[in-house]
């Protein structure tokens, strides 16, 4: 069952020297209980895609076109006009959208940094989510739920009255997860959740995340530039490059048989802890200037397999075993989707 579907999303940032095409025609689906990994280099539009889903794009950014269909969007609408409206959360009013945020779709930011407000107690910050979305819950009960959820994510209840600076990086990340989970959301979006943590803590947090995801049957989008993180928790994987989604498929398929030259390079660029030793390669060149992307395929200036057509025409999506790839290499070999 598809819970969230993003269709042809375009989010641009308007600057004085032109529009930055941060997210350009991105489409994907997220099923119930599915964990989607969103990978790519910094600045490729992963975070912008997710912030677009949250509708938290600030000036000068703008969601230009596309649809974001959310299965339970109707829950937040006023009863009267349900029938005529679609599930597109881009059509929701700001007031309705606020009921989505933190309640239906929660987002976790990088916890080791300052994703938690330094001047409020963590318990209060977690309870705040409850008090916005379920103001009818009495204070003591709300506090009990905060304590419970903290226990669930593995934080001692006595820490509820601590301030963020009193927690370790891993604990902060757990607290953020608790904050995201306390209202039983349908979807949790995690933006680089473990990036600044050391490897051992990283793996603990990821394990805990995975357990919780299974326990609550959560749908998740996990943004990371670290493929090993994805390998640990995700089932599906989407690779983004320069604002576009270049490959999408089951984790195993993408990892074992990467179709897009960029995906292949990306995987080669990461060490594997368990696999045989291999030489690490870096991808030459930089991501293009998104105000003036190159004609044709965005990746063609760096692509080892570049062909003439890549320089002039944008590749369509070709269907792979369980996803798609946007590369002219598969013209004629695979079906266009």
């Amino acid at each position, binding site marked *: 069952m598809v819970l969230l579907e993003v269709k042809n999303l375009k989010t641009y940032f308007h600057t004085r020297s032109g529009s930055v095409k941060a997210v350009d025609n991105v489409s994907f689906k997220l099923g119930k209980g599915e964990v989607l990994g969103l990978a790519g280099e910094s600045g490729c539009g992963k975070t912008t895609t997710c912030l677009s889903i949250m509708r938290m794009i600030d000036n000068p950014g703008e969601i230009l076109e596309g649809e974001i269909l959310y299965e339970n969007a109707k829950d937040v609408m006023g009863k009267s006009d349900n029938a005529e409206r679609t599930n597109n959360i881009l059509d929701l009013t700001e007031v309705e959208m606020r009921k989505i945020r933190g309640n239906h779709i*929660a*987002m976790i930011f990088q916890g080791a940094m300052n994703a938690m407000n330094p001047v409020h107690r963590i318990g209060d910050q977690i309870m705040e989510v409850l008090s916005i979305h379920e103001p009818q819950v009495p204070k*003591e009960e709300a506090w009990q739920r905060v304590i419970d959820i903290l226990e669930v994510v593995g934080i001692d209840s*006595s820490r509820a009255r601590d301030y963020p600076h009193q927690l370790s990086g891993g604990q902060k990340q757990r607290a953020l997860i608790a904050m995201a989970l306390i209202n039983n959301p349908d979807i949790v979006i995690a933006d680089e959740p473990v990036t600044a943590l050391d490897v051992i803590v990283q793996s603990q947090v990821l394990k805990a995340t995975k357990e919780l995801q299974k326990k609550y049957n959560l749908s998740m989008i996990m943004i990371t530039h670290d493929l090993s993180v994805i390998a640990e928790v995700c089932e599906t994987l989407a690779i983004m490059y320069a604002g576009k989604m270049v490959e999408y498929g089951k984790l195993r398929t993408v990892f074992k048989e990467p179709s897009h030259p960029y995906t292949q390079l990306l995987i080669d660029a990461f060490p594997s802890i368990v696999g045989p030793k291999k030489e690490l390669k870096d991808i030459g060149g930089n991501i293009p200037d998104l105000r003036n992307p190159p004609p044709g395929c965005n990746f063609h200036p760096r692509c080892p397999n570049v062909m003439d057509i890549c320089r002039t025409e944008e590749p369509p999506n070709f269907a792979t075993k369980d996803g798609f790839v946007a590369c002219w290499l598969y013209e004629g070999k695979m079906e266009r989707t």
Partner: protein
Amino acid sequence: MFKSILCISGLTICGVTIMGLKSYIAKKLLFAAVAYFVAITLVFFLYHVLPGNPANVFALDPRVPPDVREALLIRWGLNEPLWKQYFIFLGNLLQGDLGYSFLHKKPVSEVIGVSIPWTLLLLGTSFILNAVIGILLGAIVAWRRGSKLDTGFVLTYNVYNALPLFFVGMLFIALFGFTARINNWPIWFPTYGAQTPGASETGFFSYLGDVLWHLFLPLLVLTISGVLGWSWFMRGNLISVLTEDYIKTARAKGLNENQVLFKHAFRNAILPVITNIGMSIGGLIGGAVLIETVFSYPGTGRMLYDALMRRDYPLVQGAFVIIAGLTLLGLLLAEIVYGFVDPRIRTE
């Protein structure tokens, strides 16, 4: 049962909290005391080492007769070696004796005592207005960054800052004191002084009105520049706080913009403002000297300027001792408030 657990945990944590805060305050108190000690030591030695030091003034001033000079030299220990004089100065200070103004022929504390209420009235009111209006205005313009209001604010700030304070003062006097009256505007303000002669005999409320009426223009000039300074600072802080991750977290929770601003951004943005208080006190005192002169206001700034011009060194020294004390007191209060507002300090 849960409630009691909460209370107990609260209590223990409160206990820890108070302990942290206590040692923080104790540290700050100690620091303030040391700073004050250094400040008055500097004041003392500056005036004894620089040319025109009190001993020379007493020795050369033809207006001080020999026996008075002798008595003063002994009373102030000016016939003693410098280090001994210093301890006498400290000893006198401990007894609240700031010295004797030979210009006014009165104890320094009495002379300062007359002027300081006016200065506190002017600076205190201005300070409170600066803080309250400045922080709110800064928050508003930062929140509406890039709007017409914000552009207008940035423009005003830069224009006003380019104008010297005394020039603005003179302009306001010309406009609201002079032009307004010549043209029979409904409202005008006095161009000089702190009260109308004889106003104190007209009853409390009419006297109060008269004092506030005289206070208005100098206060306005000081407050405009203060508010602009504070809000400029606040605006910068809030703009940078608004890019922090916890603001994103707060919005991702579903909070509306006001809740984000007041519950999350505001308190963080205000922390550096509190530490900035010390700086603004110094600026305020500097501004007060100018403003008190331009508006002929009977405050300590103008008195100090007069004492400097007339080389009444005991009075200058005494005024500096008081001003240094008030400044450090303000700083100390700011740091204690900071300790209460920023949990990172209280729970260290």
